[in-house]
């Protein structure tokens, strides 16, 4: 089943011709409208008209997340604010988020790609989609929502949290499709069990899970416990949001990246040079239809591989493998992106000194947990318990306010956190993404 069969099954040659045409127009657009790109291209000594083949893409400079931070809030927009109809953002290092803007056409394209993604997962008009991705600045909720409406399915805008209510609604409303993070789905399964509700009695048929890394064994567990078919979806707000790539129900073997809108490359993160087909490397994406904030060769930092082998489902778009890690130190905690440096700067704000801290990420009852250990030195120490408790609570609150992540602060004795070669290890990730 397809949502847009012509485009989803476009023969490779026609697809590449379309990609080249769209790439050219994107490069022209950013050169004309975005000073950052004009400077970057001038510096690289390349002009838009020199892009003559898809291979010429490699002559273009990379775009990094830092470039987006430096352009806060709107400097990378390639459309006039008049034409921007939606703004989303993800959390940033010093409290400043990474901002993305969408034109009407961007929203239409995003809705279509999400609708395509739903169909690829086996969802159709008539389905009742229980959307438990967070609504708000995060792209997950609204992205899936618009796609569901575009498809003509019934969407329940649940957003996250309030698990008991989620289960009640899923049961009473007869939801057939669940969209949320994979770990939250397992959490719901356990909560349902406690309520004495068996997922086998629900109408759920398909689950579309993303926004955090997961694994084949987790898929098996989810499919057993929730009695549905679990599909992996990929997206990131910088590029669009959810629906950049998705598995097909037929093969469940790699995620089709919508190549008529995104140009994927897999590179060696150290050298920046493309790796061979099937080899692991960092995913780099160039958007070729976006108007609001087109990105050239954006370094996603996600590690995957790509294959152009034909797929059982008939889609001609390349497939990327399940994400197997990051080429930077970003953590994904309950679907929220967290960099250790963000927590470091929050601690610095509070303490006024460079803190010794350690982040311990774990998964308990299928939910990610974050513990922030902070060494108590003489400057922080007080002989009064309440002062230290207030300190811990203040840190917890600041992290929650700025990063939208709930954490537990544990005050520890000095030198508890191991230092190696003068530089401390900052993260212990005990989650097993098997």
């Amino acid at each position, binding site marked *: 089943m397809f949502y847009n069969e012509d485009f989803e099954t476009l023969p490779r040659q026609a697809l590449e011709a379309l990609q080249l045409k769209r790439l050219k127009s994107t490069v022209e657009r950013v050169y004309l409208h975005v000073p950052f790109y004009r400077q970057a291209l001038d510096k690289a000594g390349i002009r838009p008209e020199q892009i003559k083949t898809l291979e010429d893409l490699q002559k273009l400079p990379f775009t990094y997340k830092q470039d987006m931070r430096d352009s806060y809030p709107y400097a990378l927009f390639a459309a006039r604010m008049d034409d921007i109809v939606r703004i989303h953002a993800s959390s940033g290092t010093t409290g400043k988020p990474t901002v993305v803007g969408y034109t009407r056409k961007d929203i239409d394209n995003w809705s279509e790609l999400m609708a395509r993604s739903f169909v690829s997962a086996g969802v159709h008009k008539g389905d009742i989609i229980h959307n438990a991705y967070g609504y708000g600045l995060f792209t997950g909720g609204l992205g899936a929502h618009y796609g569901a409406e575009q498809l003509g399915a019934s969407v329940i805008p649940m957003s996250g949290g309030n698990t008991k209510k989620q289960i009640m609604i899923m049961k009473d409303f007869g939801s057939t499709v669940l969209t949320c993070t994979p770990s939250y789905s397992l959490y719901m399964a356990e909560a349902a069990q406690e309520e004495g509700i068996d997922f086998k009695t629900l109408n759920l048929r398909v689950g579309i899970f993303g926004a955090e890394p997961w694994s084949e064994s987790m898929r098996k567990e989810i499919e057993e416990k929730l009695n549905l078919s679990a599909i992996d979806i990929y997206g990131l707000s910088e590029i669009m949001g959810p629906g950049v790539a998705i598995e097909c129900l037929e093969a469940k073997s790699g995620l089709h990246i919508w190549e008529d809108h995104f140009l994927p490359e897999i590179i060696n993160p150290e050298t920046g040079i493309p790796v061979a087909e099937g080899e692991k490397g960092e995913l780099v994406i160039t958007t070729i239809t976006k108007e609001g904030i087109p990105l050239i060769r954006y370094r996603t930092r996600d590690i995957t591989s790509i294959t152009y082998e034909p797929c059982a489902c008939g889609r001609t778009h390349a497939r990327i493998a399940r994400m197997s890690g990051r080429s930077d130190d970003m953590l994904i905690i309950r679907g929220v992106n967290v960099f250790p440096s963000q927590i470091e700067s929050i601690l610095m704000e509070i303490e006024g000194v460079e803190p010794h801290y350690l982040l311990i990420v774990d998964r308990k009852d299928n939910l990610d947990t974050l513990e922030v250990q902070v060494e*108590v*030195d*003489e400057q922080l*120490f*007080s*002989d*009064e*318990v309440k002062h*230290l*408790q207030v300190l*811990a609570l203040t840190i917890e609150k600041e992290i929650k306010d700025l990063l939208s992540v709930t954490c537990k602060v*544990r*005050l*520890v*004795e*000095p*030198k*508890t956190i191991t230092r190696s070669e003068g530089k401390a290890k900052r993260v212990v990730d005990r989650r097993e993404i098997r």
Partner: protein
Amino acid sequence: MKVEQISVFIENKSGRLAEIARILGEAGINIRALSLADTSDFGILRLIVNDRETAKQVLKEKGFTVSKTEVVAIEVPDRPGGLSNILQFLDQENINVEYMYAFVERCGENAVIIFRFDETERAIKALVEKGFNVLEGERLYQM
């Protein structure tokens, strides 16, 4: 009239208190009084010792976070109502007690109560004026 207390940060895990006792014992430090405030994660050990400087130094050398805190020691007769008199007076004077602990003198008939006030100077002045027996630090250290 102030007494110097040593405060030590300890994580709430087994063996930490024993470690501190061992370090102080090996350094020949005599503990006069102590109290431990604890939460589920950490504790604060408060000590009155005979040799504050050495105690602080050896604990710091072993990696503990140590601070010195000024507290007030008051001697009261070791009989019912001894503590109540002081607390009632402090309440009248609106003097806030952050925390306190007490011990009974070795062979005397008195108890010593150690107070941590938020306004130490004002508390001492009021207590002395009222005739309470506020102890000198030196006396306590050598008690």
